[in-house]
């Protein structure tokens, strides 16, 4: 392993510092604030670097790209340092809990530490045995990053040459890796592998933070430990794909949207930043666009409920403005640089015959159901889906109410809707159906897993009979 990991750690650290200056006003303890920094930091810095890199190419800055990246980091750092001085002080007296609750929390945090150590071992293992990552990692995402890094100014004209490598796929992950390679100044396998830490930490931190909003203290680290121990997450962390990035961004965005519409505490993030993360989901993967839309629609619907507050029009404006960079970059990429024709293939004339084929319905249903069997295939889901499904079923029988129902709807409804859309896409896919299911269903599930964990552990299983009363004027600081 060469020293280029310093670049990854430095960029990650810069992201956390930026986050510390921007988010976390609702987090009153040191642990909560650290979690908020780890949740939002990777998204902020990944968006900053990939979008500035892309923009510098789009406007013809070309080889000045490295300077643009460094300047972007420097300016953002200065702004962060200036804003950080205005942070509210931490609460020196954390909430009291019972001795049994403390014991549960200690056990849960021990599990988080243990599984994080496991990720350290996994990182070294991938680095030594599979430095080029998973098939998608080396065939699409890291491949694109290397193409970008090597091509420099010529990248826009080379991106569409090899259709097998999906040139129309969005560029958040490749852009981040390219920026890190640019800062390091040479190719290395360490940087693409180590960048997996961004999404591992962000997904775990945001999940824990979102659960901590609503559940007893011990459940938050338990939720993070459950997420991180899931073999599918473990397996994807350093495989250099983009699915874990979508998962992390989705739960970060949902965390922010939840604060915005529940409104019982100062929001963790300003609306423009939540919008930025929603836009970054679009800029990460095509599925991210669907999931981001669902998160937004569900939040808007939930906001009309009795226990929530309706965001002000300035909040909606902030969301919209924040989402512009990621969406605009994706549109430029797909319309000017690398037109793909994917949608046309799916909407081919034989669409209706595929949709009306009962055997396809059966195949799709069977594939979805098989993921609930812990020993299915490589056991990529372990016992996680069985546990979440079981707890959700029990909780639904008990008819969740109050804040629990709001949380379950905010985080759970996008999961169910997304699964329904995924099933519909499988029904009409022009690809060989069984191959398509085998190679993508687990990855789609991974994108939704953190949201599902929060919906169940932060919503459905929480005994919270007291309806929360929104505070007038609270929310965005």
């Amino acid at each position, binding site marked *: 392993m060469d020293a280029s990991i310093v670049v990854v750690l430095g960029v990650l650290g810069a992201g956390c510092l930026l986050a510390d200056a921007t988010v976390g006003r609702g987090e009153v303890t040191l642990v909560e604030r650290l979690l908020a920094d780890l949740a939002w930091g990777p998204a902020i810095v990944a968006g900053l670097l990939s979008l500035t890199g892309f923009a510098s190419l789009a406007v013809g800055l070309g080889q000045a790209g490295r300077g643009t990246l460094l300047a972007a980091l420097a300016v953002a750092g200065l702004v962060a340092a200036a804003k950080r001085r205005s942070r509210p002080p931490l609460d020196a007296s954390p*909430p009291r*809990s*019972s001795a*049994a*609750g403390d014991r549960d929390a200690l*056990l*849960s945090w021990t*599990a988080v530490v*243990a*599984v994080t150590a*496991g990720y350290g*071992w*996994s990182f070294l*293992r991938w680095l030594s*045995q*599979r430095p*080029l990552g998973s*098939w998608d990692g*080396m*065939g699409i995402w890291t*491949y694109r990053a*290397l*193409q970008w890094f*090597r091509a420099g100014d*010529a990248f826009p004209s*080379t991106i569409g040459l*090899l*259709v*097998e*490598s999906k040139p129309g796929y969005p560029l958040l992950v490749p852009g981040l890796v390219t920026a890190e390679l640019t800062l390091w100044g040479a190719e290395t396998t360490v940087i693409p592998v180590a960048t997996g830490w961004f999404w591992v930490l962000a997904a775990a931190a945001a999940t824990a933070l979102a659960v901590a909003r609503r*559940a*007893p203290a*011990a*459940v938050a680290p*338990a939720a993070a430990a*459950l997420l991180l*121990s*899931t*073999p599918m997450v*473990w*397996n994807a962390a350093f495989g250099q794909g983009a699915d874990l990035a979508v998962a992390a961004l989705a739960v970060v965005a949902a965390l922010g949207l939840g604060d915005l519409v529940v409104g019982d505490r100062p929001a963790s993030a300003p609306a423009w930043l939540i919008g930025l993360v929603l836009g970054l989901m679009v800029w990460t993967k095509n599925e991210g666009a669907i999931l981001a839309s669902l998160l937004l629609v569900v939040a808007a619907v939930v906001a009309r409920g009795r226990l929530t507050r309706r965001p002000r029009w300035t909040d909606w404006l902030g969301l919209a403005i924040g989402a512009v960079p990621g969406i605009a970059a994706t549109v430029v990429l797909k319309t000017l640089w690398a037109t793909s024709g994917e949608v046309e293939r799916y909407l081919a004339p034989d669409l209706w015959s595929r949709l009306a084929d009962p055997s396809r319905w059966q195949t799709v249903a069977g594939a979805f159901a098989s993921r609930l069997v812990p020993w299915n295939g*490589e*056991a990529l889901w*372990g*016992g*996680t889906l*069985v*546990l979440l499904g*079981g*707890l959700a079923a029990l909780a639904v029988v008990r008819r969740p109410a109050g804040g629990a129902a709001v949380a379950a709807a905010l985080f759970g409804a996008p999961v169910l809707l997304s699964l329904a859309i995924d099933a519909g896409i499988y029904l009409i896919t022009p690809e*060989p159906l*069984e*191959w398509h299911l*085998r190679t993508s269903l687990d990855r789609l599930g991974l994108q939704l897993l953190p949201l599902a964990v929060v919906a169940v*552990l932060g919503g459905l*299983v*929480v*005994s*919270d009979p*007291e309806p929360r009363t929104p505070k007038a004027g609270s929310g965005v600081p």
Partner: protein
Amino acid sequence: MSRRPPTAVMAAILLVFLVNSGVAVMLTRRLHGPQPAALERRYVGVRSELANVARAAYVSDARWRFLEARFAVAPTILDPGFVARDLKARTITGFKIEEMVETAANQRGLIVLCDFKSRGGLDRFLAELGTEAHRRGVELRVRFADAGLALLAVGG
């Protein structure tokens, strides 16, 4: 709000955590190298794209010498990108397969580079290739083939 989660829930999470961790460790232990050699080809290809010679980009001189040494076959190669795309579009039928078999029969051998994303795709391709070879009375020996490795050597 209750400050302590239900004991049964915490116990269930802990149990699943332990099971999951065991599976994850097993999966990680199974990772082993070396990386598929074909990926080196992809990266080589990127460099050549910059020179706008994508068709020739798949195989560098060094890579080519490696293939010759490894499989001891003649340096005949079909454009892999177009082969791969045609295979998909034509469901592995048509002149491309015939061309491959003909080339393999006329020369000492043939190396085909193509992108198979699944074992099933590769198997279908091999079946088509074998059928065509049998029809022409050509004996083919597949020297190396694996899904994802995207490297197939056919000895005539």
